[in-house]
C-alpha cells in the first residue's frame, strides 16, 4: 500500500523493516515516499549532493514485498539508506564535497557500501559534507551549505552534515557518516540523532576518502539507539583490504542492547562541566544522564580528565599532517577536474589545486606541510604523536576501571549558518569529540532532550570494542528522554524560511 511521505518521515529503521516484512508496504512504495520527502525538504536543507534514483529503483525492485525472502538473510532488505559522499560508490559520482572531484566516478564500492548492498539496503543518495570532511558546520561544501532541519537558519554540524540532516528531516531512517574528530557525533547531536564513532579498525576504511587516516572511522547516524546498533552490526567486521581493520571477531551489539546498565560503571568529570566554556544546557544534559543511569541501577563515579584541553591542539596537527599527504593525489592528472594552464604542467597543477580546493582544505594542507617540514617535524608532528599516546594510555587506564565515560558532545549549541568564526574558534568546538579519535576508542552521541527548541545530546565513550556498553547505556537513557517537536514529525520546512 502506498505510504505518504509525512508518515514515512517518522518511521524508524526498525519500523520500515517491520513494515516491509509484514507486507504493510513494499520497497518500491517506501522508495517513492522517501523520494517525495527528500524532494519536499531539499530546497530548504540541501542535504544531498547526488541522488541515485536509477540505482535505488533497481535495488528496491529486488524486494517487491516481504523483504526477507527466505534464506537470503538480507537484514536491511528494501530499507532506504543515505551514504556520505566520501564513501566510494561504483559508477556513481563521488565528490567528497569538493569541486576537484566534481566529475569523479569511482570504479569500486567502499567496503561499507558493499556490506549495505549485500544486506539489501536501497542506497538513495550521496549526502552533502564539509569538503574532504574538514569542518564542523556543513558550510565548507563546494555544493552549498546544509541547513539544520530543526531550524534551517542554523548549522546542522559537520562534517557529516547531509547524513545528519537527511535523517533529521525524515528523508531516510538511517545514514552513514564518517568521523575523524567528531564528524558523526557533532552533527548527530545538533540534529537530535544518535551517532556512533566505532573503535578504530572496527569498520572498514576501504573506499573511504581519507581525511586523517589514523583517526577516520565510518559509523551510522539514526534516530534511535536500536536502529544505530542494527546498522552498526551490519557494517562492522574485518576487511582484508584495510590493514588497520581489526581481526578479532565481531560480536553483534543488538542482542544485548536491552540488558540495562546494572553492572556498568560510568564515569564523568564534573570539573569539566563547571569550568567555563560549556553551555549550561549541555552540562545539564550530562547531569540528566547521570540521574537516569543511577535511576536504572547503574553505578556512576567521578573522575578527572586532565588531558581533554590538549586534545584539539594535538589532533589538529596529526589530522593536518595526514590530510596534507592524503590530498596530494588530487592533481587532475588521472581523474578529477583539471584546470589546464598555458604555462606548462606545473602551472596546471597549481591552478587545478588552487581552484579545486576550498579555503579550509588549503589551510590544512598548508598547515600539515608546515608541521612536517624539515626543522619543524619534532616540534609539531612528533610532539603531537606523543601526546596522542598519552591520550591512549590515559583512556586505557581509565577504562580498565570503568566501562563508560560521559562527556558533552560539544561545548555550545549550533551557530547560525551565516555566522563566520575564525578557523581556531571552529577547531575548539571539537574539544570533547577528538579524545575518542585520539585514543581510538568508540564513542556514541545521543539526544537526551530539547532546550530552546533545539536538541541537546550527550556523549559516551568506552574501551576498545565496547560499542555494546555504549548502546546499552544509551538505550537505557533514551527511555527517559523526550524530544519535543522533532523535524521528522513536522511538515517539510519551506525554503527561504
Amino acid at each position, binding site marked *: 500500500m502506498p505510504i505518504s511521505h509525512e508518515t514515512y518521515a517518522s518511521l524508524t529503521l526498525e519500523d520500515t523493516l517491520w513494515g516491509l516484512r509484514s507486507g504493510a508496504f513494499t520497497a518500491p512504495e517506501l522508495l517513492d515516499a522517501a523520494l517525495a520527502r527528500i524532494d519536499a525538504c531539499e530546497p530548504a536543507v540541501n542535504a544531498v549532493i547526488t541522488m541515485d534514483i536509477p540505482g535505488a529503483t533497481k535495488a528496491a525492485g529486488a524486494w517487491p514485498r516481504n523483504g526477507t525472502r527466505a534464506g537470503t538473510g538480507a537484514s536491511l532488505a528494501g530499507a532506504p539508506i543515505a551514504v556520505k559522499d566520501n564513501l566510494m560508490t561504483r559508477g556513481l559520482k563521488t565528490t567528497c564535497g569538493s569541486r576537484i572531484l566534481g566529475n569523479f566516478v569511482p570504479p569500486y564500492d567502499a567496503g561499507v557500501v558493499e556490506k549495505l548492498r549485500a544486506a539489501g539496503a536501497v542506497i538513495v543518495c550521496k549526502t552533502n559534507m564539509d569538503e574532504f570532511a574538514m569542518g564542523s558546520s556543513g558550510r565548507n561544501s563546494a555544493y552549498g551549505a546544509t541547513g539544520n532541519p530543526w531550524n534551517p537558519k542554523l548549522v546542522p554540524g559537520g562534517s557529516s552534515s547531509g547524513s545528519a540532516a537527511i535523517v533529521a528531516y525524515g528523508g531516510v531512517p538511517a545514514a552513514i557518516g564518517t568521523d575523524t574528530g567528531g564528524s558523526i557525533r557533532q552533527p548527530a547531536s545538533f540534529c537530535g540523532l544518535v551517532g556512533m564513532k566505532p573503535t578504530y579498525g572496527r569498520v572498514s576504511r576501504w573506499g573511504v576518502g*581519507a581525511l586523517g587516516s589514523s583517526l577516520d572511522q565510518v559509523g551510522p547516524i539514526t534516530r534511535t539507539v536500536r536502529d544505530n546498533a542494527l546498522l552498526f552490526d551490519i557494517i562492522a567486521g574485518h576487511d582484508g583490504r584495510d590493514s588497520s581493520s581489526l581481526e578479532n571477531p565481531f560480536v553483534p551489539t543488538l542482542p544485548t542492547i536491552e540488558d540495562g546498565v546494572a553492572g556498568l560503571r560510568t564515569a564523568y568529570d564534573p570539573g569539566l562541566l563547571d569550568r567555563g566554556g560549556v553551555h549550561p544546557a549541555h552540562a545539564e544534559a550530562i547531569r540528566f544522564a547521570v540521574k537516569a543511569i543511577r535511576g536504572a541501577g547503574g553505578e556512576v563515579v567521578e573522575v578527572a580528565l586532565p588531558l581533554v584541553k590538549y586534545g584539539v591542539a594535538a589532533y589538529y596537527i596529526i589530522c593536518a599532517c595526514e590530510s596534507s599527504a592524503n590530498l*596530494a593525489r588530487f592533481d587532475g592528472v588521472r581523474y578529477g577536474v583539471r584546470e589546464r594552464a598555458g604555462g606548462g604542467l606545473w602551472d596546471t597543477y597549481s591552478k587545478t589545486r588552487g581552484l579545486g580546493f576550498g579555503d579550509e582544505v588549503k589551510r590544512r594542507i598548508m598547515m600539515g606541510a608546515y608541521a612536517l617540514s624539515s626543522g619543524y617535524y619534532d616540534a609539531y608532528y612528533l610532539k603531537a604523536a606523543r601526546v596522542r599516546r598519552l591520550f591512549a594510555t590515559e583512556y586505557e587506564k581509565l577504562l580498565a576501571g570503568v566501562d563508560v565515560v560521559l562527556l558533552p558532545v560539544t561545548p555550545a549549541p549550533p551557530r547560525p549558518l551565516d555566522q563566520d568564526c575564525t578557523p581556531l574558534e571552529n577547531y575548539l568546538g571539537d574539544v570533547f569529540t577528538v579524545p575518542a579519535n585520539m585514543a581510538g576508542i568508540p564513542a556514541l552521541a545521543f539526544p537526551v532532550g530539547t532546550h530552546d527548541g533545539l536538541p541537546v545530546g550527550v556523549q559516551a565513550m568506552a574501551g576498545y570494542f565496547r560499542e555494546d556498553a555504549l548502546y546499552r547505556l544509551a538505550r537505557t537513557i533514551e527511555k527517559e528522554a523526550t524530544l519535543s517537536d522533532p523535524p521528522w514529525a513536522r511538515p517539510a520546512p519551506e525554503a527561504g524560511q
Partner: protein
Amino acid sequence: MSGRKYVTTVGVEVHVELATRTKMFCSCLNAPQGVAPNLATCPVCLGLPGSLPVINREAVRLGIVAALALNCAVNPRIWFERKNYVYPDLVKGYQISQIAMPLGERGWLAIIGDDGAEKKVAINRVHLEEDTARLAHSGDNSLIDVNRSGAPLMEIVTDAVLRSGREAEEYVRKLRAILVYNGVSRCRIQRGEMRVEANVSIAPEGAKELGVRSEIKNQAGFNHMRSAVEYEVRRQAGALDAGGTLRQETRGWDDVNQRTFVQRSKEDAHDYRYFPEPDLPPLNIDPAWVAAVEAALPTGYEDYVAGLLGQGLTAADVDALSRNDALGFLRLAASAMGDKTVLFAKRLIKDVFALANSTGVPLDESRLGPSAFRDAALLLENGKIAAEGFRTLLDVLYREGGEAERRAGENQLFVETDAGAVAEAISKVFAENPRLIEDFKNGKIAVRNALLGRTMKAVGKRADPRVVSGLLDQALQHQGRADHDRDTRLPRGKS
C-alpha cells in the same frame, strides 16, 4: 693543474625491482613489461581516493633474503613512511618508503679493493618501497603508464667507503650477482629492474672532512657508472685546482659526450616531509620467520662459486654461468653440489647458452625453468632421450616452456628401442650393403661405424644409439659365425 692529490669517496645507492608475482601493496601483476599499458592497475596503484595498501609477504621475504645475503641485521620491528613530493609519475603524491627503521641495516659485501686486497664494503641499509609509474614523452605531452606504479622496490645503500669508479663498479657487479643468485631480483638493467646512483666527492689527502658531493643519477650500465664516477672525480679536481668551489647537486650522465651535467642543485632539493604511513600498522618481523628464511637460504654466493671450482669447473665456466645469470638457475636445477652440478653446468654452457645466442633471448627471459632443465638433462642422462632429442627438447622448452616429460612426449622424443624394428633395420642394411659386410668379414673393422650410421638412419632418431649399437655388434658377430653354422637368427633385444 696544480697536481694536488685528492682522496675520492663514493657511496652507492641501488634500487632493484623485486621478483614477486604481484605489486608491493596491491595484488596487481608485478609484470610491467608483460601487460598492455595501464591494465595492471587497480584503485590502490592508481592512487584513487579511498584505496589502502596491504603489504605483500613475498616482498618482505625477498627483502629479508637480501638483507641476510648482504650480512645485514634484520630489524625486529619496522614500519613504513610516506615520502612526499609532487611529480606526475607519483600517483598518490607520496611514495610509501622506509626512513627511520629499515628492514635491514649494517651489512657488508666483500669486493677486491683497488689495492688488490679483499675489502668489505659497508652496507648502511636495505629498505622496501614502491616504484613510480612510467612516463613516456610524445610531442608536447607526457604519457603515463601506471603499470609500474606500486611495483616492489628495494633500496640498498652503502656507506661512503668506495674509493674509485672501479671499486664502485666492482661493488655493483657483485651486488647484482648476489641478488640474481638468490632470486631476489632479476636485475635486468636495460629494463630498469636495477638502477644505480653514485654519490661522489673528493677531498685533499689528509683532510678530515668529506668534500662537497654530487649525486649522479640512474646510470644505464656498470661501465657507464664507472665512467661517470671517473669523469666526476676529474671534473671536481679540475674545479678545485682552478680555485673554484663545488656545489652540492644532482647530475646526470651524458653517455654520448661522456660527461655529467647538472640536473638539480641543492637549493631546490625536495623537502620530503617523511612521516609514518598511517594506513599501515608497524610490522613486527617474527625472529622465527627470519630464522626459517635463513635456513632456507642457498649456499652463499661465494661458497657456491668456490664449490663449482672445487668440482672441476674452470674459471671460464663459472664466468660464463655468471655472465648469463645462470648461477642461481644452476643451483635450483642441481640442489646438491656434486657430479650432477658439473654435468648440468656443462649442459647449460654448451646447449642452453647456445640457444640464448641463437634465439637472442637470454636465459632468464626464456620459458625454460630450472626444474624443466633438470628433468630434460636427466632424461638424456638416463637414456630416455637421445642427444639430438635433448637439443630439440631444450629448444621447445626454451621457447614454449612446460614440463620436460610432457614436452618430450608431445614431440615424440622418447627413445623407443623396438628390438624387432632394429633387427629388421639391421637385416635391411646388411642386405643392401653386401660389400660392407664382406669388408667387415675381411677384417675391415672400421666399416662398422658406417653400418651403424645407416642403421640409425633406418630406425629413426627415436632409437637409443647405444642399444642399436649393441644389437649391431651382436649381428656382426653372428655374421662372422654364420659361415660356420648357418645360423642367421638374430638375438632378441630387450622388448
